């Protein structure tokens, strides 16, 4: 028997959902907000989404063009490195697979970048193959600015800081360049099932 916190009982979760909650996480029903700085106010008239870097011709969509792309609605569990998990969250947006369709690239890595200067690094394999979306609706409503609206990244199998708010594009790269939190003590990949929270985890 290892260490026991004297007098700690804890609050067990029901077994039906416990297999969906990674180690060290707890389930919330609200939607906490975490950001490193002020919430940017985004002007949709000037908004574009760009795929650039290791690509012959950068791809760029205006807001109107982006809205016209085939959308998917997905329901996913999300896991924040600050310990909360939220089950069955529903999002609408465009899959990265659709955005990348027909793209030839020598890149193995990407940097997803946002208004306000936020970046996060992701392996290309982690955002293709039905694993990532660029979303503009949460729960059937336009995405609120606090939660990354008008458009955020969604890569639910990794800790939620990878799901960059206020996203503006994907830079395809041959090498891995640690992003904002990844340069500030947080794990370069961030798999919640391996509890990859911090450097060295």
């Amino acid at each position, binding site marked *: 028997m*290892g*260490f*026991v*916190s*004297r*007098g*700690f*009982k*804890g*609050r*067990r979760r029901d077994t039906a959902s416990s297999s969906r909650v990674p*180690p*060290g*996480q*707890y389930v*919330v*029903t*609200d*939607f*906490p*907000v*975490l*950001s*490193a*700085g*002020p*919430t*940017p106010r985004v002007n949709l008239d000037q908004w574009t989404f760009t795929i650039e870097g290791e690509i012959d011709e950068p791809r760029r969509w205006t807001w109107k063009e982006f809205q016209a792309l085939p959308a998917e609605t997905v329901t996913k569990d999300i896991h924040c490195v*600050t*310990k*909360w998990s939220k089950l069955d969250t529903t999002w609408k947006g465009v899959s990265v697979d659709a955005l990348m369709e027909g793209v030839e690239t020598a890149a193995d890595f990407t940097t997803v970048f946002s208004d*306000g*200067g936020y970046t996060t690094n992701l392996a290309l394999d982690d955002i293709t193959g039905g694993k990532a979306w660029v979303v503009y609706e949460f729960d059937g409503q336009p995405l609120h600015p*606090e939660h990354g609206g008008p458009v955020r990244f969604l890569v639910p199998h990794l800790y939620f800081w990878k799901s960059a708010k206020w996203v503006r594009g994907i830079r395809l790269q041959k090498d891995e360049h640690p992003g*904002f*939190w990844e*340069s*500030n*003590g947080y794990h370069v990949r961030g798999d919640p099932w391996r509890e990859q*929270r*911090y*450097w*060295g*985890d």
Partner: protein
Amino acid sequence: MIRWQFATLAEVVPETPRVSSLYLDVPDWQGHLAGQHVDVRLTADDGYQAERSYSIASAPEDRRLALTVERLEDGEVSPYLVGELRTGDRLELRGPIGGYFVWRGDEQRPLLLIGGGSGVVPLMSMLRHRAHVGNRAPARLLFSSRTLADVIYREELERLAASAHGLQVLHTLTREKPAGWTGYTRRVDEAMLQEVAWPRQDAPDVFVCGPTPFVEAVATLLVGMGHDARSIKTERFGATGG
């Protein structure tokens, strides 16, 4: 890897009816920066575990590691930390964590700290650190609490403001106006920030910590007043947690 280690509770200091500071002996503590946090892990006798993050309240120079914890009635971990944990009990923690919401102490720009409720905790670490290192750049803390009884670190803040060079502490109370009170008595608004914040040309380093609506409101006002968004560092905590 930031490894789990044992801390022993040396002293509990009640700060307000809902908030206490836990002073911990951590034998191999590697040191921290003002503004960082730790993860705390509790284990029940059947192996069930719960983890939460708490901001560090102590300065890097302090002998003991201090966490200041608000007891959330519907919380899982905070009612244990504030209520059940006794001096001599051991606690598992790992850290320090976070490399962004930190103030190193050698900065010469004005330091503007804006805290709501227990959001003052990492800001207090910065003010304690500032006093230790003798930083003379001007500093201001604007601290929003519900009532006078809810003001965390009230006496220590008074002492710091009286003794540390160039520090001003300004309070606002959102739910009462005690007799003789000379501070503000409303939510933080633009007029208050115009009085308290330095003009944008002075380029203060700004740290804002508190509940999400508080941080959203303050950060948005500061950007609207022309402050550079990149100089405003925020930490938000939601109504859940605990």
